[in-house]
């Protein structure tokens, strides 16, 4: 494992719009303590996997090396705007955006980066990795309701660390469908930081697919700020990563906002996938509907830590958090922890966590109709995931590589 200083020295010199943030990030990274098991948030993490990320050089794919089909694209005739993050060139360079979506660049982008830096909690190790290493950034301002989907795709370069950042500002009454796709590749890591700011009455439907492959790692932070009347819906599916740490942090700034989180993580082999969600209610009458589902098989480890803070001012908050887990082998492990800190006294905060196996009665019912146990298991697993996958609503479920995984679970 590279020492922190060694890792910083291995990075390219800071430059361009990201110069300031890279410098600050690197200073922060060196000041921070390396995660250890004595820190609660890292207690269960297989730290050696985390540190392996630092041994990977930063991806340096040039535009010439990118297959033309992977380029960013948009035409008025298409239903979606597709932005590829493969090359180190500006991903928005080659694209003309539709009316209502504008780029944030130059000094404006620097200002946003600076403002956000001050707001974000220092001390988050994955965040400082992203600050230090990001060489791809997308900044967008959404001014109105958008019917076209914004698809952002990261195909990781193998044997390297792929680092990117997205900043999206939704103006009052604006809306957007965002589809984020992170694909790992052999011996790779992705560091992603997505910042979403929703002004009054804005609506954002964020669907997020994270599909790893051999020896791939993911450090994913998603920071969301919601103003009054806004609706943020996050639906995520993560699987196939040797190691993944997903941290959605959502703040309802002044209350009266709606947050919906539906997430699924599937862990097989010796994978470790962690979700650490944190929803902060800083104003009254906010709503949260959160469902986290996980499947763990083989020798894998699934971790969910669901933190909710309800400040004193956040009266009449209505929050519900449910963690449902399927443990499919004796050697797999699931850790799930709801963590509610409620200071307000007039709130509804329901939470629950279950860890179970496939229901014997359901399996027998299917078998008694001539369905082989293997097929019955696959049917039940698919049904378990369906609730989340349906919300991803990609053209067909076959588009989701998760199907292959469900089959492999059953072998």
């Amino acid at each position: 494992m590279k020492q922190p200083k060694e890792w910083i020295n291995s990075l390219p010199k800071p430059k361009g719009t990201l110069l300031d943030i890279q410098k600050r990030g690197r200073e922060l990274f060196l000041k921070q303590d390396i995660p250890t098991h004595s820190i609660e948030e890292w207690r269960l993490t297989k730290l050696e996997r985390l540190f392996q990320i630092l041994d990977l050089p930063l991806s340096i794919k040039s535009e010439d090396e990118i297959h033309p089909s992977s380029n960013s694209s948009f035409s008025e005739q298409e239903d979606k705007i597709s932005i590829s993050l493969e090359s180190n060139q500006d991903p928005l360079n080659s694209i003309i955006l539709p009316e209502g979506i504008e780029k944030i660049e130059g000094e404006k982008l620097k200002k946003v980066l600076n403002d956000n830096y001050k707001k974000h909690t220092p001390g988050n190790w994955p965040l400082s990795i992203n600050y230090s290493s990001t060489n791809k950034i997308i900044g967008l301002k959404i001014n109105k309701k958008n019917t076209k989907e914004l698809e952002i795709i990261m195909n990781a370069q193998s044997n390297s660390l792929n680092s990117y950042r997205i900043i999206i500002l939704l103006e009052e009454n604006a809306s957007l469908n965002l589809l984020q796709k992170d694909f790992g590749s052999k011996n790779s890591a992705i560091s992603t930081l997505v910042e979403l700011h929703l002004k009054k009455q804005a609506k954002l439907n964020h669907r997020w697919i994270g599909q790893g492959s051999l020896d791939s790692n993911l450090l994913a932070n998603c920071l969301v700020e919601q103003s009054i009347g806004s609706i943020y819906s996050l639906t995520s599916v993560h699987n196939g990563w040797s190691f993944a740490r997903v941290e959605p942090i959502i703040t309802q700034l002044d209350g009266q906002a709606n947050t919906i989180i539906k997430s699924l993580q599937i862990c097989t082999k010796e994978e470790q996938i962690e979700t650490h969600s944190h929803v902060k209610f800083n104003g009254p009458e906010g709503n949260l509907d959160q469902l986290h589902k996980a499947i763990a098989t083989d020798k894998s480890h699934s971790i969910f830590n669901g933190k909710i803070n309800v400040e004193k001012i956040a009266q009449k908050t209505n929050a519900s958090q449910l963690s449902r887990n399927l443990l499919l082998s004796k050697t797999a492990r699931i850790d799930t922890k709801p963590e509610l800190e409620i200071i307000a006294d007039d709130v509804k905060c329901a939470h629950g966590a279950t860890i179970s196996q496939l229901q014997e009665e359901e399996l027998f019912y299917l078998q008694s109709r001539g369905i082989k146990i293997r097929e019955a298991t696959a049917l039940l697993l698919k049904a378990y995931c369906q609730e989340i996958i349906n919300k991803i609503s990609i053209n067909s479920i076959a588009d989701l590589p998760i199907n292959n995984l469900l089959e492999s679970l059953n072998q």
Partner: protein
Amino acid sequence: MICQEPKPILEISNLHAEVEGQPILKGVNLNINAGEIHAIMGRNGSGKSTLSKVIAGHPAYLISSGSIKFKGINLLELEPEDRARLGVFLGFQYPVEIPGVNNLEFLRVATNSRRKELGKNELDTFEFEELIDEHLKIVQMDPAFLARSVNEGFSGGEKKRNEILQMSLMEPLISILDETDSGLDIDALRIISSGINQLITKDNCIILITHYQRLLNEIKPNYVHVMSSGRIIKTGSSQLALELENKGYDWIDHEPFSKEDK
């Protein structure tokens, strides 16, 4: 006079079964031929449902001794799905809800598993939708229930209709209907009974597990058995069910062991 040779479908001999070390079945003997309807009655906890699940192959039960032969084949060596494919059907007392599994697709997969065994072609979605229309009529079931998840949010009566719909689609040789009449109103009972009557042929057979004469008014059994403490203690004609309706089970307890093996 031409006397047809009885064709045995199910032969249960001295069957003992237990769950978690607790003996439930303690020597069940029962033979059923094609074309016959057998009713099994008895108090709660007498072993009726256990018997039905053991025949269907529920993994929770351990068979400690005895045998079950289905058309001469040792049923106990087969997995539940293989038993179903051969033509053993269990109509559940409490049909299981399976959220997320589409009912129509489930019915199609189940039907195809049996059709394959019967040497019939497997049906794709479109072909199956054509086939199912006829079967829905048998139980007067609303097609809207096909679009839902298996049994999810179905009323008690709808669940039982769905069971008999499955029976109809799978063309079993033996159907064990475990308290199919429970939770049904009078109309639903008639509809479901009529459906079952339509499915009876000279080549198949039925075991009706029930507490009440009202089902046997609709479906006439050839034999009525009474189970107690894991055994069949008395066998008679449909008259026996009427006697039970009038007298309850106490009088059987006081009679000397009077099983009449058929």
